[in-house]
Each structure stands twice: as structure tokens, then as C-alpha cells.
């Protein structure tokens, strides 16, 4: 099963991956968490739905996203 991993300390919370890019809509900007640079990192709501398309990785400028299969 593919699953996506967010590197929270690398993420700058730009939100590009959360804006309708994900075909199954499982990425949001975490409202409660905050990383050591002061950004709200992206968060995966339901990893079992991930289809491993890699769209979130393609638009991530850092890249703070890793996808495993």
C-alpha cells in the first residue's frame, strides 16, 4: 500500500500540496502542530487512502514529502 510521509521539520507550511492537488484529499495544513521554524506543517489525515500518484511531491518546493510503496 502506498503511503505518504511529511517531514515536519522541513515543511514550511506553504499549503501548495493541500490546495486541491491531492486526488483523494488527504492533506491539510495542521491547525494544532507547529515546527521549530514556526510553521504549521502539512498533515496526512488518512494514509490508507493514498494512491501514490506523487502530485503532492511534484509541487512541494522543499521537498518535505516522501512517498513509499
Amino acid at each position: 500500500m502506498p503511503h505518504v510521509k511529511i517531514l515536519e521539520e522541513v515543511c514550511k507550511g506553504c499549503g501548495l500540496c493541500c490546495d486541491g492537488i491531492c486526488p483523494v484529499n488527504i492533506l491539510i495544513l495542521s491547525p494544532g502542530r507547529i515546527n521549530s521554524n514556526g510553521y504549521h506543517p502539512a498533515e496526512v489525515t488518512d494514509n490508507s487512502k493514498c494512491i501514490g500518484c506523487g502530485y503532492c511531491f511534484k509541487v512541494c518546493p522543499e521537498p518535505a514529502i516522501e512517498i513509499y510503496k
Partner: protein
Amino acid sequence: MQQIFGRPQGLTDVLQRYCPGCGHGVVHRIIGELLVKLNIRERTVGIAPVGCSVFADEYFNCDMIQPPHGRGPAVSTGIKRTRPNCIVFSYQGDGDLAAIGTAEIVHAAARNENITVIFINNAIFGMTGGQMAPTTLPGMRSTTSVQGRDIKKQGYPIKVCELLAGLDGPYYLVRTAVNTPKNVIATEKAIKNAFVNQVDNKGFSLVEILSMCPTNWGMTPVQAKKWTDESMIKYYPLGEYRNRAKEGK
């Protein structure tokens, strides 16, 4: 469990100091992946520009040189001619390539120098604080055109791909963007072509990439992504402006 997408070996582990939502990171990642995929990392020399990506030498995991402002194509020419076995890419922004370095890029293209140029166009001077660049759109606000760029006073933006397409020299000229997954995939293909052309000794390749600058455009990254679609791509149409591989020359 196998990693199918992740940080490529062509990039170092240094955290990039770009603003959130900046397009530079996506292009860095694409180049980092290609250095490994094409197996050219050991013999690649990159040219870092002056601008936001001035620290690109810390981010790319290959040899890098940081020449004076705008002189990327000239320094690339020198390296390529003295060490023809090296793969040389010049990474430049619009302040570097379209303002102070216009002469260098035009002559490198006219000579069909066997180098790869990656041109990041975000329509503004990013590092110095959002001043008007040669590529700023008509009516677009910046810190030195607070009422919007007035074409009667400041003239029209420079369209680099169209400008260079007027020359006989260049081998490959293309304009892409990095705001959506579709455009990023097109950019990956274009940059790959640009590197393969150099490996095959074909000649001058330039990839112009429309990039987002949310900080200096005064927008959120998501708004900047939409604005790229609505304004930037309208003024700077995407596509190939020269591909001599297709023309069969």
C-alpha cells in the same frame, strides 16, 4: 517498503532558505533528480546566479561556481570550452539573466554554445525586496512601480524565449511553469531535454520557467499559484519556441 518519491541525491541535506511557496525549490529538485538519472553528477559544474538562489552552491550536490552578477553564460562558456567533458548548467533568475546579463545570454545563444541555461522568471527582483524587473508585467505593482508598471514610462517586459528565437543560433528554447503538477511534469521533460542536448553535443538549450514569488507579489502561495495561471501564463505563453531536434537540423 520502497521509497518511490523523496529528496534526490543530487541535492544536499541543507535546508533551503527560500520563502514558503517559492518556485526555486521545485526546479532545484528536478535538476537534482536529473543529475542522478542521467548519471552526470560527477562531471557536472553548476553556475549559481546572484539573486535569491545565490546559495545554490550549498543546495546542489555537484561542483558549483558563483560568478559575478549576470555572467553565468560567459563563465559557462569558459568551463565548457576548456573542459568539454563537463556538463555545465547556468541557473539564473530574471534579474540576473534578463537585466544585467542580457548581453551574455544573447551572445551565448548566438554562438550556439553547448551549455544548458535554466532561467527562473518570477517577474520581480526577489532578493532585493520586490523591485520592478525587466520581466514585470504591465500594470503589475512592485516596490518601484507602486501604481503598477506604466508601459509609457518603463516600456514593455522582455520576453526572453521570443527574443532568443529571433536568432539562428539556439538549439532548444522552451517556456514552462511550476504552479501545477501538470506544468511541473512538463518542466521535468523540458529540463531533461536541455541536459540530454548537451550530453549529445547539440548546442545551446534554455528552459524558461515561470515561478511563483508569493512574498514579493504580496499573496499567499495558493493565490500566487492561481495568479501565475491567470496573469503570467497569459502574458508569457508556454511552449517550445525552438526545437531543432524536431525540425531535423
